[in-house]
């Protein structure tokens, strides 16, 4: 299985290198293990995460692309759809079979035609527009709903942190 996954990952890496989406970089950190990637995601413009560069880790299964990769932010994040430990909870990362939240129809779940690029773009749009209905981080969802200014301030802090700037 790993052979075809490797080929596909190589193709995706190549495409992401030659034709990268704006503000997104992704690739294997150490090519000894091609199934472990790191991605940098720039916070989308005109949102509270604007300008931040957030590192995330992508772990691919052996039967990729039949199963989705797992994604986890390596930096501190405060977002309704990101678990406190950094795991990202969006529908595109869920295999059609499992449905931990019970909210999603299978149409927007993982399928082999999805790709790393699409995942990362979805994550960017998730940063832009949190979906507080299926919250992975209940606190963040609450702040997002009830105290938008407070949320923006926290996000600003994270942005500065991600850039290595003093608080």
């Amino acid at each position: 299985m790993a052979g075809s996954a490797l080929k596909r990952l190589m193709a995706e890496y190549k495409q992401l290198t030659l034709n990268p989406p704006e503000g997104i970089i992704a690739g294997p950190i150490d090519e000894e293990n091609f199934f472990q990637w790191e991605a940098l995601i720039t916070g989308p413009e005109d949102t509270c995460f604007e300008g931040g560069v957030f590192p995330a880790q992508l772990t691919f299964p052996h039967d990729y692309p039949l199963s989705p990769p797992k994604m986890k932010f390596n930096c501190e994040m405060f977002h309704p759809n990101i678990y406190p430990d950094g795991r990202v909870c969006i529908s595109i990362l869920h295999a059609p079979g499992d449905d931990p939240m019970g909210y999603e129809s299978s149409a927007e779940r993982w399928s082999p035609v999805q790709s790393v690029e699409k995942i990362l773009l979805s994550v960017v749009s998730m940063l832009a527009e949190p979906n507080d209905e299926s919250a992975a981080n209940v606190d963040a969802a609450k702040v997002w709903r009830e105290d938008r200014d407070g949320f923006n301030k926290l996000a600003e802090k994270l942005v500065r942190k991600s850039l290595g700037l003093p608080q």
Partner: protein
Amino acid sequence: MPMMFLDRMPLPRMKTYTMLSLMLLASAVFHAHQVTVQVLEEPESVFDSDRKNASNVTDSVEFQPSNTTDSVITFLGVMVDDPWCIWTLINMAYCCLILLGKGIQRLVFGDLRVSEQQHIKDKFWNFVFYKFIFVFGVMNVQYMNEMVLWCAWFSVLGFLHILVQLGKDRFEYLSFSPSTPRWTHIRMLSLLASILLTSLALLTLCTLVGLHAGLNTFAFMAAECVLLTVRTLYVIVRYSIHLWDFNKKGVWENRGSYMYYTELVFELAALSVDFCHHLHMLLWGNIFLSMASLVICMQLRYLFHEMQRRVKKHKNYLRVVHHMEANYPMASYDVIDSNIDDCAICWDKMEAARVLPCNHMFHNSCLRSWLEQDTSCPTCRTSLSDSRSSSSSQAEELTETVPDTPEATTPNRQQRNHFFHFDGSRYMPWLPSFSVEVTHTQLLGAEPQLQQSIQTSQLDSMARQVQSMFPHMPINVIMDDLRVTRSVEITIENILDERLLPAPSAQLSRTGSQPSETLSTQVSTSSSTDDSMIFYAGGDIADGAFLDNDEVLHSSLPDTNSAENVLESFGSRFSKCPTEREVILQKRKESLVQQARKKYMAKRHRQSNSGSECCQQGELQSTGSSSSSNQHMGEGDCESRRRNTLEQRRSAMYLAARQRLESQNGLS
């Protein structure tokens, strides 16, 4: 306890152990020699008692009453007979085995990874446990020499089992990497081949022993041997398939089924051999209602379940294959030729493909492995199960609510978190019908118009397909056109006939590079006047420093274009060498972060004093200077010396800048 002992077995202890064993052996040899000398001097007393044990040796060797042969035989007799000597010998044998293992590990595997260590540890204790049960529970061994023989036999087998396990783990690990040196593969394969040969030799040995000791002993001995052979063969075959596939360009259409059947055959073979072996133990040993029987029953149950699971999986596989062959015909050559798309699952070229009812095409093997776990088209999510009739009736029902033109569906979409139903067959017979629960998954930076539009992965993939041919076209323009035309071909024609032009404000266009801005202006920065500081400031900030100079901050404002150039200069090539790829990736990441910092600082600055006119002048200067910072990395000694002085000045400015920034934040 034993686990902890094994944990603490580093090399120095191995060394002392070897030394100790050698010393013990030497003393045993010395002891035996003494005894031999004694015996030869007075042959009547001791020699007779030794003869019984040494008879095997004496029988096989042509007995000649010469002095040396005599003494060797006596010596061997003493070695085997004396309890202390025999234990030293056994100990020495184990020491050799461990040393051999260490040697092979060094030669073939190098350092073991943590998971590999864990695996062999598990394997080892599992093996020891079951063989203990076997020797004492099932065989009920009474005699010392019998036990020693069984132990020796299982030690060798266990050793080989562990090596195979290690080989399997390492193979799986190596298959994660596209750039394993050929030499590593050769070493691995030759190790596996020699294990295979050894296991075959052991099998012959079983047969020889079995001729003397009977069928049961043969079966017991052979079972483990056959298991070993099967496992080794399995790893070798998988390895070869992997190597063959990876070194082959393009797709190997039958790879999937080869892989599948080797896996199936070998797994089932190993399971059934193991099952028979356990059953044999249970029935032969007369050990009902003992601990051993309980353990064996548990194992039997587990093996049975595994076999059942495997067979079930195979049935599913056959069902899928049958379903595929019955319902999805192979695409004709014309269709494949006219189809410029790659297979959406593996991204490889299509040479042969199956066509789904929704007209999407995939490789035979790709489609099969997907259908094993899901029953919808990967691209458009059309359900492929037999319940097509029900879904189409549902779609008909929904058409009443969906207006005729696709554009008119947008009002529906604007109410978020509602069901959205789309009946594609109204527009084109092959378009899917589906229903989507809408959540917010718009692409970033897309035009608002795009955000409201139908977002199917199909449209997206069509657009991508078009864009791959016309990289200068922004994806949103393509998407808009596709939404009207609903056909890749027509959109392509539109672009070719220039009916479709890239919009000037296209945000997603990533190809607008301005190569004219690659100025190298850092030449004049060696002087340390304030003027020149302004000049290189753009590049400076890019390295992550904060600057206290007003003009400097201005100058860093709007030079995203040039920074993009930097990115593109890295991104525009995909190196063949893995280490170079890693380096380039690292550089790209750094420059992204630097650019983001710069932007952030600029934004801050803009916020704090928004009415600035001198901005424009700084702009002009900076576009050139910042682009030079990354492109001229390390261009010689002169450059690096300059950089050093820069570094010092920068750190001084950094402190000042931080203070300034803090005060700014206080204001805004």
